[in-house]
């Protein structure tokens, strides 16, 4: 169960894992996520399903190394197993034919964006994707995104690939040249906050897929709660996607930082132990 069958390094710290999970592969839709626990002492973390192969019975997860758990997970080699894998969780993306969709992905946010781009394209929409990252090496899944996009714009902070600039600049450029009917925004919270400001300014309906701290992922604890339109929502059961213009991103950013010191200390301790 939950055996890693393939592992690919997208960059030094971004790893793609294909994991055996036949039931999840069959049941998942765009927008769904899973909860993973790597080993017996491990914590439970949420990861969005990037793609699935129903025939092979596998799902693909893209993991960025940022702490103990993502390190343990990306250190797994093909043939090894994750202790626990549960899903698919959350509400699937509401995919409709709306016209032209602007798909915005920042960093590893492109991984969860991929199935949504695919679904919107298959539903008959025109899809324009803007992928952004700090530098060239961190642009991931470009080929796969191109497969389901009518046009792709690449933005890097340092100009090492595509155009130099932030995702918001790329978005403005696309919005200036054509009518956008809906936007999908996935990436780091701070990026989603500013990207949502752009679409708000232009009156474009937008959804954001939120990535908060989670424990169980089934609605029983509220660790993942966010304020949407003034009301408390649980990302794991009510989301992960919400109206990007109604999310309190400032609160979300503060909550994401709640365990930062723990995480830093735990990672340092883990790295020391590994040496």
């Amino acid at each position, binding site marked *: 169960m939950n055996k890693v069958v393939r592992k690919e390094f997208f960059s030094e710290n971004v790893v793609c894992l294909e994991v055996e999970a036949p*039931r*999840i592969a069959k*049941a998942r839709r765009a927008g769904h996520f899973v909860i993973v*626990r790597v080993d017996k*002492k*491990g*914590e*439970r973390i949420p990861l969005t399903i990037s793609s699935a192969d129903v025939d092979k019975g596998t799902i693909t997860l893209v993991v960025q190394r940022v702490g*103990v*758990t993502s390190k343990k997970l990306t250190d797994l080699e093909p043939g090894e197993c994750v*202790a*626990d*894998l*549960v*899903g*698919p*969780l959350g509400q699937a993306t509401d995919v409709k034919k709306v016209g032209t969709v602007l798909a915005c992905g920042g960093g590893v946010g492109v991984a969860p964006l991929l199935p949504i781009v695919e679904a919107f394209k298959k539903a008959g929409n025109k899809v324009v994707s803007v992928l952004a990252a700090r530098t060239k090496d961190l642009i991931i899944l470009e080929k796969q995104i191109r497969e389901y996009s009518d046009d792709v714009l690449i933005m890097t902070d340092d100009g090492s690939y595509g155009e130099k600039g932030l995702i918001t600049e790329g978005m403005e450029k696309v919005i200036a040249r054509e009518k956008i009917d809906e936007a999908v925004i996935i990436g780091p919270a701070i990026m989603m906050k500013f990207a949502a400001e752009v679409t708000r300014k232009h009156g474009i309906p937008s959804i954001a897929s939120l990535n908060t701290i989670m*424990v*169980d992922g*089934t*609605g*029983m*604890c*509220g*660790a993942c*709660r*966010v*304020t949407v339109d003034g009301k*408390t929502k649980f990302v794991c*059961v009510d989301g992960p996607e919400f109206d990007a213009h109604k999310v309190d991103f400032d*609160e979300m950013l*503060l*909550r994401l*930082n*709640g*365990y930062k010191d*723990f*995480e830093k200390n*735990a990672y340092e301790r883990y790295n020391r132990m590994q040496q």
Partner: protein
Amino acid sequence: MDKANILKQERETTWRIELRKKIKNKDRTSIERVKMPEADPSERRRSFMEVNRGLTSEAAMTEASRCLDCPTPTCIEGCPVGINIPKFIKNIERGEFLEAARVLKETSSLPAVCGRVCPQEKQCEANCFYTRKLKKPAVAIGYLERFAADYERETGNISIPKKAASKNKKIACIGSGPAGLSFAGEMAKRGYDVTVFEALHEIGGVLKYGIPEFRLPNNIVDVEIESLKKLGVKFETNFIVGKTATIEELKQEGFEGFFVGSGAGLPRFMGIPGENLVGILSSNEYLTRVNLMEANKEDSDTPILKGKRVAVIGGGNTAMDSVRTALRLGAEKAMIIYRRSEEEMPARVEEIKHAKEEGVEFLTLQNPIEYLGDNKGYVRQIRVQRMKLGEPDASGRRRPIPVEGDEYLLDVDTVVVSVGVAPNPLIPQSMPDLKTTSWRTLEVDQESLQTSVPFMFAGGDIVRGGATVILAMGDGRKAANAMDQQLSKNLESSVKE
């Protein structure tokens, strides 16, 4: 033969008659109720060791001799799973401890759990002859149940109940909490092929993620789960029925009957300003991090906020578990904030007593109305409103009303919100035909616990809202009985055809 007659006949077995003759009733009733040995408060308040230490064999036998072996044992009526109380207690009195444990297992799947967490003072012990007629402390039925179950486990002579011949019918049980475990055990005994589906990575529901080690050690729950496995019950963890597979898919895989015991795991928040600040969490999150994820241990990857000044909002057993956990994580000040007075607290008297002995402060007739944080988003203060009691409300408890203008600021660094739970919506969401009430619980027939979907039964908190372990277990047993009848009827009619 009906139940009353069986009880009568058993009471007339030679050993029971002789036991009754051995000590005069007057002498029995003059024995004082046993006291549960407890770990010293100063030692236990910083440790997750179990607080109640259990009875010695001698103490258990003495306590058992207080039981008068009544001709009509009313205590049984108070037990939601109908344990044959005099029979197990009389076995303890004559020193047949393993036989006592076997009697418990005739009707209960988790005696070591129930002996620890049941509110006996409201159930069996409230119906004991001592409380009803003699106005004396009841026979310590809960302590004795725990003693027999612990004795069996510790001596390694665990008995597996008799099983009926296989019925070759697959049954699905959704949720592995007390309702599900009780249902699964009953159905397995009746010869069904039962699979329990659990969303989390561990079996046991609230017994594992909710109730702390100092009240119910996880290894005790695991031993009882092992017994169910030996009975043939299968467990699938990390499986969310309705998400990982639908009910329809499971039916296609051959499951004929379904029991929903998915509980009331959805935490309520109060919806007051600042409630989403960092450091404010639900008791479910707080307790799950510690009990299920072992965040209190050095080698666990799951972090936990070890607050110095911790306020727990609420007055139920979950609030007591949370505040006592806070102490054990090193809090200098661990406080209960409750809007009514201590008299109205829903927590067990024993838990309140234990919390006080350990140094928990009780701020009653007070209610948080706002949380204030620092610029990093961490909670720093609670605006507390003082309350007074008004007229009784629908629940019969006096309604708390704010004392206008009487509020103050309380310094805190961690807040645990423990103001109740709502039914888990996953199953109703995935099955539109399933009727729910305005409380979002499942609608069931009171007698059979059958839902609006004929092949589906339900029990425990998904039907009751937040209730107790033993009521959930009683439901599991009742639903098993009804489902067995339904499926046996189907079997008969198909044979006739």
